């Protein structure tokens, strides 16, 4: 394998990254535009950030979104982890194959269908649409993502660790909380973060299941954009990008830290053989 940069390599990298990041870069740059016109550059300014924070509609929507995202991600993580445990652990129950297939199905289900079916359900049971229904809807569709992430971690989990805990006198519940959960924690956290982001940027399902007073940020942005894109929206989106980027950076740094720790541990083990 050659390690040299060829013009083809460079071209692929530049084109690939340009395709991915030019739209976002443009959005960020224009959020600092002094002009009210989105497409005309008229000097640097941060006034649209101030305007965004002064826009009570936007701030309310952001607040709703965070509440929904935190609650739904947390509940989805608990349910998804339980589902993953059941599917991985009790390998011989009847219909296991069907159940694990059904866990994956919502991953590929069109959002419109998920949103619509939930709406029909809430209407049928006479539930007032609002923040509760949006949260329930988000739990439903993000739970399976958590289950998939946790399940893949459990697949490589050494069962004899749990057996050792039982053998040493820990009840099954204690075994789960003091052995299994701490070991699969990184996957559980990753699942939570995934569920959180999914909830944060969901538009379609929220659109179907929300009601008055429960407008999420994506819904708000979408409705404002229909009246014309303002630099204010650019500012809000830039903040969202910043939050997501920060999350990714923290996650990858902590993983890197773990790798370094492990390498150091292995070195120590070698030295003291």
């Amino acid at each position, binding site marked *: 394998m050659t390690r040299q940069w060829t013009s083809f390599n460079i071209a692929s990298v530049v084109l690939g990254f340009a395709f991915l990041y030019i739209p976002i870069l443009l959005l960020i740059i224009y959020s600092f535009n002094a002009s009210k016109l989105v497409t005309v550059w008229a000097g640097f300014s941060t006034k649209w950030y101030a305007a965004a924070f002064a826009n009570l509609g936007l701030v309310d929507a952001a607040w709703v979104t965070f509440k929904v995202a935190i609650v739904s991600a947390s509940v989805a993580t608990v349910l998804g982890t339980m589902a993953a445990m059941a599917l991985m652990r009790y390998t011989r129950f009847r219909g296991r194959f069907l159940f694990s297939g059904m866990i994956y199905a919502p991953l590929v289900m069109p959002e419109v269908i998920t949103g619509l079916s939930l709406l029909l359900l809430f209407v049928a049971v006479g539930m007032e649409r609002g923040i509760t229904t949006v949260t329930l809807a988000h739990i439903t569709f993000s739970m399976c993502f958590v289950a998939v992430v946790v399940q893949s971690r459990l697949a490589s989990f*050494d069962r*004899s*660790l749990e*057996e*050792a*805990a*039982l*053998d*040493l*006198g*820990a*009840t*099954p519940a*204690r075994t789960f909380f*003091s*052995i299994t959960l*701490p*070991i699969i924690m990184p996957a559980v956290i990753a699942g939570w973060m995934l569920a959180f982001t999914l909830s944060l940027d969901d538009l379609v399902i929220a659109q179907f299941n929300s009601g008055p007073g429960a407008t999420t940020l994506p819904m708000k942005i979408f409705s404002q954009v229909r009246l014309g894109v303002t630099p204010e929206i650019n500012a809000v989106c830039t903040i969202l990008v910043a939050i997501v980027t920060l999350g990714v950076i923290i996650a990858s740094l902590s993983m890197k830290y773990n790798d370094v720790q*492990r390498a150091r*541990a*292995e070195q*120590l*083990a*070698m030295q*003291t*053989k």
Partner: protein
Amino acid sequence: MRPHDWRRLVSNPKQPAALNRSFHPWLEKDKQPFIEFQNVTKRYGAVTAVDDLSLKIYEREFFALLGPSGCGKTTLMRMLAGFEQVTQGDVFLAGENLADVPPYRRPVNMMFQSYALFPHMSVEKNIAFGLKQDGMAKSEINDRVADMLALVKMEDFGKRKPDQLSGGQKQRVALARSLAKQPKLLLLDEPLGALDRKLREETQFELVDLQEKLGITFMIVTHDQEEAMTVADRIAVMDHGRIIQVDPPMEMYERPNSRYVADFLGDINLIASKTVGHAKGKVLLQSDSGQDLQVNTSEEFAVGRNVWFASRPEKLNISRKKPAKALNALEGEVWDIAYLGGLTVYKVKLDSGEFVKAAVLNSAVSGADMITWEERVWVSCSPQGARVLIS
């Protein structure tokens, strides 16, 4: 009374092990077994892992389950730990039927093949884990952990995480953790499988010492026959979910009850034969190629029965001339030689077409006059050095 005084053991580790040479509880009449399997069967769907098996194990025994992989030995052990349910039959521990006792209520601890150390806990926390489940006082836990670390000579490693230990150190921690609760029975699942040869041999002797000092019943699962013979008071050889023979190592090696056991435990030469009669304390055989053979035994066999003349390689003599008192002497040609340092193994093709192996101790520094390839030789075996096997 506490079963064993840990502090005394730790402070006086060089104390000679109370090796009781007359330890044969299995020969005593009316002796209550500590563990008893009664007609135990275990099926996984259509596969029978353990097949109508009965077995008694006595207190303070070091018992080895030996067999190839898939013979059911691990299943049998896991039944004692409580990780496998019995399909049919009963398992008793100290007189109590274990059927409805979950693993976390059994006075049994297990050392796992993978060690199963909790990766997110330090060595100390690992050892303390079982004690905490019992609600033991904190100071008492600390004392016990320190004792256990001393017992396995790992005092300086209490704060380490399992990732920071070598294979041998992990093995010691796993052992300490499984002994910390002072179980009545310790199960060892291929405990030394991951260690290199030298360390494995050392650790085998340490295990025996430890077991004698602590007076706990040990049960080990292994596929390594030397390991089983080194550590165990008695060995059970298993195949296809059944026990083929249960005996002390020497008995098992010298008097195997079948070709399977003879071949599994060491090397064996087998010559297909028929019984032709009995003499005083002897059975007379004729090999299928017409050679007269005889074996010292008090057993009686029906005349004309198909049997095997069986002899271990080290019990065969090899010489260029026919030995003077030629009993069981067979002529052939050296086919192959394996020089192993301490021993030389000759593979001889007999004139009847069968192959036998003869192992010769290299007691003198080897010279030029050694028997070499394609030489004509006589292989002989005294009637005491052979056995008649019927299956």
